């Protein structure tokens, strides 16, 4: 075993390690709440032995949310979630990809389309009648959390600010949600990195293709991620750490594009080795004694939920470790696996209820903790949690930003 990404046939062959032990089944958050999903083992290593040629025999694999918990808990090293993702893509190619998934898979379009008319667009998204129509016609559940478009993109802001020069430099991979929906997160990331003496390079960048991948649209996803790899390796950035504040997009670069999409792009393989989750990077700085800890008290109760895609990076919970250093902050670790949303999964009409049931234990724990804020590294999870609990959900970076004295 090593950390080299597996080739597609190796992902498939990893089914050989499956001894049917059921560990994945007992950890799957979806199979626990619906009979429609027979579980990761059944649709994964088990069904994979029946897949050959171009006709897909599958149906229920569509209910896999792609959270990746099965792969993480498998003691035998079976790439269950990756096998499932590939099977789901084949199935969708054969059965046709609904327009709804085509739209959800391209958040950039929504963001771009919404921005010039943001107030109107956002009003429409908040309007129950519009949402009901959206559910009927497009299949996006009327209650599903959807982000609101920002009136100015993050890159607009980044392009207009005074540059901060420093010998220590990093590349910032901000992702689509920062770009279109939550530019504030990106601004704070830049502030915190600069506060710690880093010059932050922000090359022009587009979508990593993750939503396309999770919706089974592999061809376009590959093109997207390859384009991104090129964008992130503009001359002058060789060897620099790439910092991702969107944890799922970070994982896409680190592993998923290589193992699920089977992208063989040399840039990408190289970038994957120097991609960091934001807090992973900050914690490592701290462990070297190089992080500024001039923290001010933040007298809040914050419930921290580590999202699946962050956990799948196998880096522990660095945000939790760092925020523990903040004075007066009461941190409550949510010991739950998944909030249910899994990217765009929980927004779909037929999956909304499932996703809500998956998230229920987390929502209940959050309500019990009655925090001022929920912190979570993944945007879609934040939207889901905020919508389900009514508690404001922020990127943990926002808490750190406050600790540094920001407001």
């Amino acid at each position, binding site marked *: *075993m*090593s*950390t080299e*990404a597996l080739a597609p046939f190796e992902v498939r062959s990893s089914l050989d390690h499956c*001894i049917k*032990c*059921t*560990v994945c*089944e*007992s*950890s799957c958050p979806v*199979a*626990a*709440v*619906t*009979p429609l999903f*027979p579980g990761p083992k059944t649709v994964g290593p088990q069904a994979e032995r029946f897949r050959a040629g171009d006709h897909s025999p599958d149906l229920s694999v569509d209910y896999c949310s792609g959270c990746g918990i099965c*792969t*993480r*808990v*498998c*003691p*035998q*090293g079976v790439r269950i979630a990756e096998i499932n993702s590939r099977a789901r893509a084949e199935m969708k190619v054969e059965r046709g990809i609904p327009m709804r998934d085509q739209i959800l898979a391209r958040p950039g379009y929504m963001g771009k389309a919404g921005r010039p008319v943001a107030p109107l667009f956002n009003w429409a998204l908040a309007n129950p009648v519009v949402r009901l129509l959206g559910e009927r016609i497009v299949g996006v559940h009327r209650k599903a959390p959807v982000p609101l478009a920002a009136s100015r993109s993050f890159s607009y802001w980044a392009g207009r600010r005074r540059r901060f020069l420093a*010998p*220590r*430099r*990093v590349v910032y991979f901000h992702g689509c949600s920062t770009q279109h929906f939550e530019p504030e997160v990106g601004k704070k990331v830049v*502030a915190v990195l*600069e*506060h*710690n*003496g880093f010059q932050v390079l922000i090359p022009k960048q587009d979508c990593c293709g993750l939503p396309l991948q999770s919706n089974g649209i592999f061809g376009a996803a590959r093109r997207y991620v390859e384009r991104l790899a090129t964008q992130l390796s503009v001359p002058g950035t060789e*060897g*620099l*750490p790439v910092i991702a504040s969107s944890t799922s997009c970070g*994982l896409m670069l*680190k*592993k998923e594009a290589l193992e699920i999409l089977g992208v063989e792009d040399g840039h990408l393989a190289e970038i*994957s*080795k*120097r*991609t*960091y989750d934001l807090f992973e990077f900050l914690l*490592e700085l701290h*462990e*070297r004694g*190089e992080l*500024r800890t*001039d923290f001010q008290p933040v007298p809040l109760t914050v419930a921290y939920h580590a999202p699946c895609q962050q956990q*799948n990076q*196998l*880096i*522990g919970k660095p945000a939790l470790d760092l925020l523990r250093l903040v004075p007066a902050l009461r941190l409550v*670790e949510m*010991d739950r696996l998944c909030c249910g949303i899994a990217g765009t999964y929980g927004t779909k009409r037929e999956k909304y209820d499932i996703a809500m049931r998956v998230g229920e*234990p987390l929502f209940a724990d959050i309500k019990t903790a009655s925090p001022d804020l929920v912190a979570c590294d993944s945007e879609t999870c934040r939207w889901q949690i905020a919508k389900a609990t009514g508690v404001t959900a922020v990127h943990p970076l926002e808490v750190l930003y406050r600790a*540094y*004295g*920001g407001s």
Partner: protein
Amino acid sequence: MWSTYPNDQVLPAKFWGCSGMRHDVVVIGAGLAGLTAGIRLAQEGLDVAMFATGHGALPLAPAVVDVLGYAPDRVESPRVALPSFVAQHPEHPYACLSMGVLAASLDWFKELVTPLGYTGSLERNLLLPTALGGLRPTLLAPETMAAGDLGGGGEVLIVGIASYRDFYPKLVAQNLTASAPADGRRIVARAVEVALAGDPRDLRPQLLSRRLEEPAVRSDLARSIRAELGSEAAVGIPAVLGLERSHEVWTDLQRWLERPVFEIPTIPPSLPGQRLQSLLTQLFRSFGGRLQIGNTVLGGQGANGVLESVTVAQASREISVSAGHFLLATGGVGTGGIVVDRKGIPREAVLGLPVTLAGSPSEVNPEYFGPQPVDRIGLAVDERLRPLGDDLGHLFSNLHAAGATLAGAEPWKEKSGHGISLATGFAAAAAILEERG
């Protein structure tokens, strides 16, 4: 407040993979042995990090704690049987422990997992029904199973749930009735199969257990059982009575049926095992332990008889994690702590430690249930549970091992698996604490 970082250094060329992460103890493996040791150490205030490729065997296991069930005849009292058993099996992990440590680990465990209400003692094995209707000796059982102790005989109703494929009450009842628990005692068991209204015909245990956490569903179940109930003194039911709310589910059923109810564990997955696993991991975290599931430990670096660090795989990199002490609790052949190659040669998977008691691979026993050459292979350890090298000296002064990775036992035949993991995990933690002074 915003200011430039004072230090103008350029980032080191290879920033990644050379993290300064350091812990008091690194535990490799998150099964019962690793969790036991991890919790013990964290309870004492140590900074413990636990890395595991995946979950250990707990979510599959019936969650009873076996200490010694057969030697090779059925053991009535482990306390009586153990001394001569250890004398006859000097290579057995129990030989590294005193009876006092074993007893202390059991007491500690019972107290630790109070919410699950474990009962039993070294004096006498319980005799709990299996999903085939055999009587299986074990030492500690959670509250939801304890009333299944049929050592004294009795009259029981065995209930099956039609949509659940892993439990067949008729076979259980007939085998139980044919069993002889003890001289002059008899078991009379009757079977019924009930259906849960409105459910699909295939209810996987994960779903089923959660359905039963809904009060309406379990009162329905209780009603169906009541309709079938005769003079039986207790009711046996497959071990699917909820996950987080098992205590509630079980107490409700007892109340409504007005007699003891006991769960009967069956083939994996195991809800009782999952309950125990989630309680133990919660406890570990609550004492400040760090648990990272999904991280394979690829190897280690050491010098002068001291293991300095281990290499841990992440999604796209390896990192090196150092610690004062290390505990190897990676399990045996089944979970991959020990791997056997095509030539039949076994190897300890993480550090490549020598494996002992490996008979010749050509000695495979044509009888499936007979003794197999790989049965007892594993690591040999000294009295402080430190793995021994080929020269019988310990390899690293700060490396310990516990659980199924140790040589010398046939846990599923002896019925000793969890006992070994618990006691050796506990003892390894004690050794580490002692070494730290």
